[in-house]
């Protein structure tokens, strides 16, 4: 066992122990904090924190040196973290909140408009088989034409927009089904 003092945690021996699950780029880290003591993925490390202002700027102090971070809440449990050479979205969940974890909705088959614009071309119809990278819709925005391509080979489930239609940021335009999902049915 990485740290024997954890024995009996489940029995509620170490009441002051706080545990956090941090996700960055699909990788999850577990950080445990008990007063001045800190563990990451079971390994005890030296880590101290100094707040630099009231607006999310702070400094992490470690054996090997110090590093500045800036943290900005984006949505519940999600923070944008900026440090020298890295800017990432992180998800931080305290252990006791974990049971209430929301299901992250990931409709990977939906092609959404990233910015407002006007649909100038719809190149597919429902039921069409599309190749990976095939152009589905052309959007005009800021005097630019932007092509939206299929992120995978599949079948068009639904075309939500029509030529000439205005779309807002985040609006769905085309819904795709993956080949694998299709063949399973």
């Amino acid at each position, binding site marked *: 066992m990485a740290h024997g003092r954890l024995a009996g945690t489940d029995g509620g021996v170490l009441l002051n122990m*706080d545990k956090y699950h*941090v996700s960055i780029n699909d990788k999850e880290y577990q950080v445990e904090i008990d007063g001045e003591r800190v563990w990451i993925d079971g390994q005890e490390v030296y880590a101290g924190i100094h707040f630099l202002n009231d607006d*999310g700027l702070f400094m992490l102090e470690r054996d090997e040196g110090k590093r500045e971070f800036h*943290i*900005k809440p984006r949505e519940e449990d999600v923070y944008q973290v900026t440090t*020298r050479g890295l800017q*990432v979205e992180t998800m931080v969940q305290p252990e006791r909140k974990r049971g209430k974890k929301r299901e992250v909705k990931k409709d990977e088959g939906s092609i959404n408009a*990233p910015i407002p614009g006007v649909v100038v071309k719809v190149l597919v119809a429902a039921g069409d088989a599309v190749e990976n990278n095939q152009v589905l819709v052309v959007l005009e925005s800021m005097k630019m034409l932007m092509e939206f391509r299929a992120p995978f080979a599949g079948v068009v489930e639904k075309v939500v927009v029509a030529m000439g239609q205005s779309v807002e940021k985040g609006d769905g335009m085309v819904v795709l089904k993956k080949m694998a999902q299709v063949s399973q049915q």
Partner: protein
Amino acid sequence: MKILIANRGEIAVRIIRACRDLGYTSVAVYSERDREALHTRYADEAVYIGPTPASQSYLNIEAVLAAARKTHADAIHPGYGFLSENTLFAEKVEKAGIIFIGPSPASIALTGDKLEARKIAAQAGVPVLPGSEFNLNEGSVPKAIGAEIGYPVLVKAVSGGGGRGIRLAGNDEELLQMVGSASQEAKLAFGDDKVYIEKFVRPARHIEVQILGDGAGNILVIGERECSIQRRHQKLIEESPAPGLDKEVRAHLYEAARQVGLALQYRSLGTVEFLLDENQNFYFIEVNPRIQVEHPITELVTGIDLVNTQILLAASGCLTLQQEQIHMRGTAIEARVIAEDPEQSFMPTSGQVSYLKIPSGSGIRVDSALYQGMYISTDYDSLVAKLIVWGEDRTTAIRRMLGALEDFNIAGLTTDLGYLRDIVRSEDFLSGQVDTMYLESFQSVEPEDAQKLQRETALAVALYIHNKLKQTAALVNKESNQWRTAAWREQMVGFY
């Protein structure tokens, strides 16, 4: 002397700084969106010119002219983009008795027509790429063109610029398709759907030469810039001098640029763009009749302030600089920080800058209109800052650029900062072996220390959240304790 800057963003701020250097009064113009923009605060005076859409403000010739008349401006600097290459605007400015800080309207018209510019270059003895001289929109595409030049070919907008309206075609069928889409985009961007065809050279480097003319037959050549790091014909990283450029080829390029300038009787700052193929043959592409986005790298290697020089030339009409005085020293590199997401096919991003850290130090320059708290919208160009570094040699410049890119933090929206870092530290960039198609196949390689940094970040975030939760809890406890104390005191009252 009072100068109105008919632009916004970093270039407006840049020109206002030049006005300060010269002791001239500056006038900014702004749209609804830019009421609080940095350029409006930097200028000595600022005039509102219309609603947010550029067509109603920064592209509105009458509104800009009215602002110049109202403030009694002596000159107008158009910057780049917007009205900078608009012949009608330049004509109206001069007719109003105001100095246009740029080329003559005739030069703008000539260089604006890419086919005309090709002809002028060819007549001046400068090599041009094989291309069609046909107006492709009159009737169907003559397939013979593609076959005659040889595929692949580029379809380009006659009134093009900024990489818009350019398409690659590998065969007859694609050519037909691309002529359609290029002219459609050209119509949207430039109001002119005419396109032409040019041989596509690969591998090729994009090298441009800075010229400065007095309009009376004197042309100075102020170094070259390597601009091969492009993404879909949009420059991302520029460098001066061009790495590994043969001395003799450089001399020929300079002479060609000078010849083009002479043929145009060129006035003011301009850039002559060339393609250099792998056999060191170069071909004229086009002339940009304005200050370029990437002008600072030339300033850093030559020590010449191009904008100051351009303004003084417009004010006095004569060049004080001489060719023998122009030398390049060291290497300068520029990286364009744009509000676009490299992981979402460079879709424009927007957001409020919640935290901003701008790099500084020896040999580091940042041209931007950024400030903490500003909202970056998708209403205008996505360029938010230019990071420019200088080093005694190329290696120093690259290291300096990497350090500065790491120090550059913009929180609140996605930018290409990480992508720029990946390019600058790629082996091909380090060796100077890049061509214009480099980014089309570029894949970021995650360095070994990235995992470690991510782990540190996880640790930092957890500690931060933990401390914040504890602080909040302490505050709640304190408040409830105070309440309890108060309640207890109230209860006590009755006992007295």
